[in-house]
């Protein structure tokens, strides 16, 4: 089924069409489950004025943090950016815009973006700085705030396995934001550890159906760990 074969063979092809000013929705939590090669390609392309939507912004020299060195990011929508000194500096210097968003609200905004739901009510953030300027409405006597969905020109995600049709399976907690991000991109690119033939993935155990995925590329991953904690 040629029309459904999503596999591309170069990172150039994987990120083709990304342009200055685009919004990129990125999967990953910390350095776990991030599309390492796609991020490198964005750095190589030197695309500028990007809006990045991601739970975190990597660390100084790995993950989305590498896009800070050449000031490729204009704005970031994230829940936690505390692991990144360069980020903090650019923020304090006013070189980067940051919209801090509660983690669950961020996940739901991506899901809503992919699901055609332009906005939803949540109690999260009511009465806090997050609620500023947002509509408040009571349901059953409790106040909630209206949060709008997020979509982007591109979504970049990291999966464990993909088949050629773009069906994705994630491994362990490297799933995190990836399935929602995958639904919210106009063009969704998946960098994966292994590409299999259609039919090899059990249909009811696919995490992301191929309809959401436009391009699949096989990557090599360093999989850096932020905090190695062990027991004896």
């Amino acid at each position: 089924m040629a029309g459904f074969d999503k596999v591309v063979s170069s990172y150039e092809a994987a990120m083709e069409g990304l342009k200055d000013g685009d919004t990129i929705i990125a999967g990953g939590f910390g350095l776990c489950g991030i599309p390492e090669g796609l991020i490198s390609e964005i750095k190589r392309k030197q695309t500028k004025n990007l809006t990045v939507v991601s739970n975190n912004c990597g660390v100084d020299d790995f993950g989305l943090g590498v896009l800070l060195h050449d000031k490729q990011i204009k704005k970031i929508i994230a829940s936690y950016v505390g692991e990144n000194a360069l980020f903090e500096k650019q923020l304090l210097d006013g070189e980067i815009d940051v919209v801090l968003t509660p983690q669950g609200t961020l996940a739901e905004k991506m899901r809503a973006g992919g699901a055609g739901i332009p906005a939803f009510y949540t109690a999260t953030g009511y009465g806090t700085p997050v609620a500023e300027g947002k509509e408040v409405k009571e349901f059953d006597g409790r106040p909630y705030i209206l949060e709008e969905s997020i979509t982007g020109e591109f979504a970049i995600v990291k999966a464990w396995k993909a088949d050629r049709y773009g069906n994705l399976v994630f491994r362990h907690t490297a799933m995190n934001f990836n399935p929602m991000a995958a639904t919210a991109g106009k063009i969704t690119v998946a960098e994966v550890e292994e590409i299999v033939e259609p039919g090899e993935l059990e249909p009811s155990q696919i995490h992301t159906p191929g309809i959401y995925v436009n391009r699949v590329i096989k990557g090599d991953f360093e999989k850096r760990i932020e905090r190695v904690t062990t027991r004896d």
Partner: protein
Amino acid sequence: MALSREQVAMRVAQELQDGYYVNLGIGIPTLVANYVPDGIEVMLQSENGLLGMGAYPTKDQVDADMINAGKETVTAATGAAIFNSADSFAMIRGGHVDLTVLGAFEVDQNGNIASWMIPKKLIKGMGGAMDLVAGAKNIIVTMTHASKHGDSKLLESCTLPLTGVNCVKKIVTDLAVLEVKDGAFHLIERAPGVSVDEIISKTAGKLLVEGDVPEMVF
């Protein structure tokens, strides 16, 4: 004497009930897992997408794809489930987690909590804290009763940007256990050897003390 971090965790652990699903924040709350009382089983939820967090891995078991919300390598307990972050926060926001334990900079007598931001000083982000305080059935805050400079962290009204409103029900500090209700802190227990007067002097918000206040028992 003021409790150690471990003792605070031990006291919080006494609040656990068999069959509880619990989310433990970073710091002292994480230690609670080490003191689950005998005969009680809890299941730990980690908001990045894991229900049934297990022990830290052995060196051989370390897997970059298996981390907790503190970005530490962990294992999955027997019977664990792993899911995406939207599903994880659906679980939290929907009130399915029985108890959340988390740290704070300040709590006030109306149950408001400030735990994520110190203007011009600390702008790391709220992570999942706002969702957790808005969604959990029950919330326990652990913190020192006062700052290093002696300033009370139990206030009439929080001064820092809030994490959530009217949500904290119980506080375990190094000096006391307090309930928050009806616009006041209610002193329930005191740390062994800590006087009610000391607690009064270190509580800036409205504090109610009724009858004899028992010492914590470990």
